[in-house]
């Protein structure tokens, strides 16, 4: 796993705060936990200097104590580096990465619609993927949101 080891080494050497934050899960799978405040520089370095030219998706999830956002970056379509940041539940917001990946528009809008995370730098004109007319303040992917049709109480 020479490639994966090299990536870990380069990242931890360049960014001291990532010293214990890079895990090689298996071949072609790396996880990096970055402080949200350092996201911009880590992301930029990965994409512009380390060859992570692919973004497969952005996964947002409600971890109850806050939200996690994972950027699934790929290098040569082979090594997947999952860059995770965490943002607080109150006024959650992330910076857009559409300047690097125009396709991220769809992934970021999912975070906005389904989790209520604000996307700094992205203009959102209408809902996606939720339908027009979806009520304000209802974020279905949050853990405390339940579908009333399934008989559970909607918060």
């Amino acid at each position, binding site marked *: 796993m020479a490639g994966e080891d090299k990536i870990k080494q380069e990242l931890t050497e360049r960014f001291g705060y990532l010293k214990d934050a890079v895990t090689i899960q298996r071949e072609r*799978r790396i996880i990096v936990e970055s402080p949200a405040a350092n996201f911009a520089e880590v992301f930029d370095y990965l994409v512009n200097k380390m060859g992570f030219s692919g973004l497969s998706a952005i996964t947002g999830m409600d971890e109850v104590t806050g939200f996690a956002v994972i950027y699934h970056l790929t290098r040569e379509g082979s090594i997947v580096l999952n860059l995770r940041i965490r943002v607080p539940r109150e006024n959650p917001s992330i910076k857009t990465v559409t300047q690097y990946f125009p396709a991220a528009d769809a992934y970021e809008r999912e975070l906005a619609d389904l989790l209520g995370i604000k996307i700094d730098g992205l203009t959102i004109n209408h809902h996606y993927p939720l339908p027009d007319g979806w009520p304000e303040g209802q974020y279905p992917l949050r853990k405390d949101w339940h579908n009333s049709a399934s008989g559970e109480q909607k918060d």
Partner: protein
Amino acid sequence: MHDSHNAGDVQVPIGPQHPSLKEPESFLLTLRGEKITSVDVILGYNHRGIEKACEERTYVQDLYLIERICGICSHSHSTAFVQAVEEIAGLDIPKRAKYIRTLVAELERVHSHLLWLGVAGHEVGFDTLLMYTWRDREIVMDLLATLTGNRVNYGINTIGGVRRDVTPEQAEEALKAMEKLEESTNYFIELASKEITLIKRLSGVGVVSNEDAVKLGAVGPTGRASGIQRDVRRDDPYAAYGELDFDVIVDNHNDVYGRTLVRVKELKESFKMIRQILKNMPDGPIAVKAPRKIPAGEAVSRYEAPRGEDMHYVRANGTDKPDRVKVRPPTLANIQVVAHMLKDRYLADMPIVIAAIDPCFSCTDRMISINNLDTKKKETVIWNKIRLMGIEHYKKQGIDFTELNKKFFMV
């Protein structure tokens, strides 16, 4: 996904929920005369809240739910999901199970690409191509039904392996089917390489340069037709692909013609792989026992679906239900590319350009609308009307499939 409009532009809405659209899609095209100056893509009509539903169901229930995200890529989604769960659980899947998964995967690719070829023919007015390809596709559908019990939504996967074995008789039947299909496909390749009308119609349409394709993140045959050297089967091997010998088909035409060539040649690679699988199928069990509760962990699973990279992320929390399931189907990655392809092109090209990315809107749930700015009116135009308009437009330029349809019908 939003471009600015100028005065004098015409916007024509197409969709949503129109009876002639196969799947709900809303394309907002801004027209100046016959040229599309900008494209707005509004998606979401097929959104069914599957990711949320997964959190409220067990892994086994989710396996069946996820398979039904799409009828054509059902095995893709099912396998991508189950691989992620198996990785988290640390399960060692028997080799035979991996081979059977790969067999179904390649058969799915064959039926999907043949379906696409027929749809492409239909969109340009070459309806006998639709008849031929869908006739041959029945060979694969019958084979899949024999092997799995169903034509789509195979239910072949279980957490830990597969649910049905392949008998020697079924293997024999499959090999015979490959012979027939190879013969047909050689004919389709010849058609695609030599039939001038088809080449003219598909060339220079839906153009995306390699640079733009990379920037926009095009995946699958759409990306490979613009020179992108990417295929998850080779780059991030899963199931049995690490042991198979196959070529990744890359083309440099950058247009719909290129996307056609890539898909027909991929069919040949699939036959090659299927033969290897049947010849080298390892003995042994077809599944290992899986725990009901999956230990805390997470995994990213990637799969080369017929349309391109399908990515699943699963997070487990030690219970029998996942904490998070994220699905990024290939068409979602390619929809941005379509907007780019349509810009500064003719309305007449819209049906084939969109069809050429082989869009699966069930996977993606996307829509595009068109508004008419010249008359300052919003018009809902039926997809079929634009398809017929496109066929007429090209007839006037001497590209006419009437004779070809007649000629091939006689064969």
